[in-house]
């Protein structure tokens, strides 16, 4: 079982952090010394996060209107939207100040990084999520399905896989980048309660058979969305976590 929505509001308040206070000086100095393979993996993952976090921050608004009959849930979604916007700003700050990606705006920098992002990842965040958000804005009954995609698949599988891979890559790099490590750990901490909240919504919902099947198959497929930026073992690990999470919220599929 998972605790009630009130707990998530309190938790969110206690976990606030400011992305502008993270010192990236050492990271910026270390960046040019990255080996080519490290450079490609770290920048590729950062590029994916810029797209992913910007998209989730943008589209969470539709969820709030769909949840409008439950004030507590709206409060949690508002707290989460605040987190997601902060994550997007953090990753944009890293690509701007550490990787020195050119561009006047976040959108410009995302465009400059687009070639490094797999088509599967772009499809998830730039097509499927906006389409799902549009559906839930039109039909509030779609909220459970939308949470299934957003919290269980995009956050629970795709972003979690990328966060662990980036943290692992940073810690194993030939140079130290403490500011990025610190920021990633804080992002991961936020994502844990987001996933807990999504799991709570799914646990409380009357999820029908085809939705269960979709949650499972989408999650397994989405684990590979980062392409070769994430190892096969890490993909399998995230798939396992996804299946275990679904079982824990009462979705029994085998």
């Amino acid at each position, binding site marked *: 079982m998972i605790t009630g*929505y009130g707990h998530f509001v309190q938790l969110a308040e206690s976990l606030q952090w400011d992305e502008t206070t993270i010192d990236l000086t050492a990271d910026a100095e270390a960046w040019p010394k990255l080996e080519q393979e490290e450079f490609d993996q770290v920048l590729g993952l950062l590029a994916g996060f810029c797209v992913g976090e910007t998209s989730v921050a943008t589209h969470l608004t539709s969820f709030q209107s769909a949840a409008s009959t439950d004030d507590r849930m709206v409060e949690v979604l508002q707290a989460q939207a605040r987190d997601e916007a902060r994550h997007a700003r953090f990753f944009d700050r890293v690509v701007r100040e550490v990787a020195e990606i050119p561009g006047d705006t976040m959108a410009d920098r995302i465009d400059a990084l687009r070639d490094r992002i797999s088509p599967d990842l772009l499809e998830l965040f730039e097509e499927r999520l906006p389409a799902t958000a549009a559906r839930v804005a039109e039909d509030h009954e779609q909220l459970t399905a939308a949470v299934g995609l957003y919290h269980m698949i995009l956050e629970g599988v795709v972003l979690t896989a990328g966060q662990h891979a980036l943290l692992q890559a940073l810690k194993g790099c030939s140079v130290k980048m403490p500011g990025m490590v610190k920021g990633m750990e804080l992002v991961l901490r936020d994502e844990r309660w987001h996933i*807990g909240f999504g799991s709570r919504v799914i646990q409380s919902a009357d999820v029908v058979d085809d939705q269960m099947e979709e949650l499972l198959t989408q999650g397994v497929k989405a684990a590979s969305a980062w392409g070769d930026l994430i190892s096969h073992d890490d993909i399998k690990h995230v798939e396992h976590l996804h299946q275990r999470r679904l079982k824990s919220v009462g979705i029994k599929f085998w």
Partner: protein
Amino acid sequence: MTVEQTEAPAEATRWLCEMCGFIYDPEEGDPDSGIPPGTPFEDIPDDWMCPICGAEKSDFRALEPGEFPEM
């Protein structure tokens, strides 16, 4: 004549994952992870992880009786 008084069995302590809100209930255990129902939290192996968010056992705290009634 004496009346036997029986005490209600003490409720097993539940544990909260402070990272994601998952509550471990000893009565339920975590069978999917090989933890049978009836297993107190203290007896779970140290490498067990939260089934929702993957947090470690050390990220849990014991709930007070009646805490978090909103389920």
